[in-house]
């Protein structure tokens, strides 16, 4: 019987079985940022411990950084204090820190892959649930809490329970205007926000195999929104081509040996899975959320659902979501006005996301009254976007072009919704209050749908606004 990639990676990193039945798992790569690490360093100090393997931890600053004015000190003294704490902790323990002036700063899940830190077969952790992103490379990557960040700093290991594996095959092909974001929103709606608890998700099938690394990352990123702590794709030629030549990727003779090892990691054809799901790519539409969790979504050309359509156990939750979102059952989604368009986050702020949107946005204008923001995922993404003229396309269309960070995905910096503003957002979470206002409303969507809605002034189908796939451009 063959093995899954998850099992192979797990076995290669098991230091030993712990008395409580969990496994002590070695961590190849530890990423840290300013929000979930300061307390871990304090705990370390309290116990008189040092960072055991500083060459396996890398830091950046992303959650709290302002995206408009980057001069220090920041207007928010708490944000400045968090940045200073990270500078001090990384300097004291000899940890590489991609600081604001490094030219490599960015969202932790964008810079890991683009610097080649993320590699197939690695175990990767970060005090951040979207660490699942790195699974796109055939790594086993998952979010941990701050006490576990301490454990990794002190021992380069964590205590973990092995997960079951569910293979999700997306076969066939995607229709025009349908993106990786729509695929993962569709998967989450199909399997539920709790469906992945206890599972690692292995994404496979023809649609996934044809995807670029950026697209695969968008999917792996939101595994956690489906309840799965780990999500991964088997490494293939697309993976290797992406990594080749990146600053921290293996070089020369090492490269050849690494690729040979990586190829052997992929799940065996006769591997046993705890569960299998197949989805036909043609059934997936551009998707937007209408509720307050990422599973509450519908095709963009559809309507706000009626709570009566749901099983009785879910009805109260749906009613509550519609009340919060100020939506009416049966209302066309395209009638919903948007106040803010946010293109950013670890889900959708990579170069290809921006490139794809810029291709269609050229010559179009953001609708009057819509505040539109594009926040590139990293300094390297921003630099390339400038070079390619993408930044200019966004500016000319009426988007504000910002500096890299997490920004309005979770609004720990000054970028936030005001009152009950509604944002169409390329981010990953539409929880109540997520974007910084306790009554703010979030509609999750693909970058294309965000841009189409920014142009239309209401939730809009990118196929119509941009004339994708034979549909005529509106007006």
């Amino acid at each position: 019987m063959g093995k899954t990639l998850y099992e192979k990676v797990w076995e290669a990193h098991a230091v030993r079985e712990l008395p409580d039945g969990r496994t002590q798992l070695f961590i190849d790569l530890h990423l840290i940022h300013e929000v979930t690490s300061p307390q871990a360093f304090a705990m370390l100090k309290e116990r008189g411990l040092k960072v055991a393997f500083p060459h396996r931890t890398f830091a950046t600053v992303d959650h709290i950084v302002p995206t408009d004015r980057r001069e220090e000190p920041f207007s928010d003294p708490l944000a400045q204090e968090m940045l200073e704490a990270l500078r001090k902790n990384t300097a004291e323990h000899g940890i590489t820190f991609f600081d604001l002036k490094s030219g490599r700063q960015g969202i932790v899940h964008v810079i890991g892959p683009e610097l080649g830190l993320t590699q197939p077969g690695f175990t990767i952790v970060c005090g951040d649930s979207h660490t699942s992103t790195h699974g796109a490379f055939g790594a086993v990557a998952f979010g941990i809490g701050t006490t576990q960040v301490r454990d990794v700093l002190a021992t380069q290991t964590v205590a973990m329970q092995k997960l079951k594996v569910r293979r999700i095959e997306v076969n066939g092909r995607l229709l025009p205007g349908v993106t990786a974001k729509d695929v993962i929103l569709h998967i989450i709606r199909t399997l539920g926000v709790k469906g992945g608890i206890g599972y690692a998700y292995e994404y496979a099938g023809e649609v996934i195999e044809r995807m670029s690394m950026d697209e695969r990352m968008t999917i792996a990123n939101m595994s956690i929104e489906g309840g799965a702590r780990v999500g991964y794709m088997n490494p293939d030629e697309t993976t290797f081509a992406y990594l080749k030549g990146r600053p921290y990727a293996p070089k020369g003779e090492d490269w050849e040996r690494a690729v040979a090892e990586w190829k052997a990691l992929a799940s065996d054809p006769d591997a046993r899975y705890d569960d299998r799901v197949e989805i036909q790519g043609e059934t997936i539409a551009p998707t937007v959320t209408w509720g307050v969790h990422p599973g509450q979504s519908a095709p963009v050309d559809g309507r706000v659902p009626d709570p009566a359509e749901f099983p009785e156990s879910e009805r109260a939750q749906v009613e509550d979501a519609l009340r919060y979102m100020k939506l009416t059952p049966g209302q066309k989604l395209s009638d919903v006005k948007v106040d803010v368009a946010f293109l950013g986050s670890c889900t959708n702020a990579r170069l290809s996301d921006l490139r794809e949107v810029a291709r269609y946005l050229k010559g179009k204008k953001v609708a009057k009254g819509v505040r539109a923001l594009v926040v590139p995922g990293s300094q390297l993404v921003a630099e390339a976007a400038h070079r390619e003229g993408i930044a200019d396309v966004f500016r000319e269309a009426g988007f504000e072009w910002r500096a890299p960070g997490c920004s309005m995905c979770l609004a720990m910096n000054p970028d936030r919704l005001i009152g009950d503003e509604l944002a169409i957002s390329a981010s990953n979470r539409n929880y109540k209050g997520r974007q910084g206002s306790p009554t703010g409303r979030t509609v999750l969507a693909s970058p294309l749908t965000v841009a189409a809605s920014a142009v239309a002034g209401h939730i809009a189908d990118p196929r119509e606004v941009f004339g994708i796939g034979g549909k005529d451009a509106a007006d």
Partner: protein
Amino acid sequence: MPPIKRIQGRAVPIRGRDIDTDRIVPARFLKTVTFDRLGEALFYDERYDEKKNPKDHPLNDPRYAGAKIMLVEAGFGSGSSREHAPQAIRRAGFEALVGESFAEIFFGNATQIGLVAVTVAPEDLGYLFALVERAPETELVIDLEKMELKAGDRVIPVFLPEAVREAFLEGRYDPLEVLLEAMDEIRAMDARRAGPGKRGEYGGRK
């Protein structure tokens, strides 16, 4: 770490399925380099309006003041990995959560800091909610040795993975000491395994 065998106290009912960590602690309260004052941030946007006036919420209800147990519904703690969420619950004086199911990262984070999160059958949870909403003064007793919860005139079975239960009973829920025992094996693995910019035995660190 002291063993945790028994939790006794009143319970506060927090209704709502899939309550995410952004609701437990809104992100703006994460702007801190310590966990010290997080108790005040617990469910902040559900407890207070935009002018900081208290809203109608069980945590603002004096009848539940001093409760040690929080009753919650299915999918509690979904979303971000922020340990700030269980830390806030712990620092607001809670020692245990009783629910139907918990998000995975949240459950692990809670366990490591000694916040007990047990599950009960849905019908038992319904009984408990009704009981404490009707009679907030009711004392609940969670017994981890017997794996049962006494409430009113009922004894309800509670569930916890066996390994986690043992860890609580033996005071081993924070694994750091145990992890540190294997440092020799870990050093050997670090030397053997590839790392960023390093192919283990092939390249050496560059």
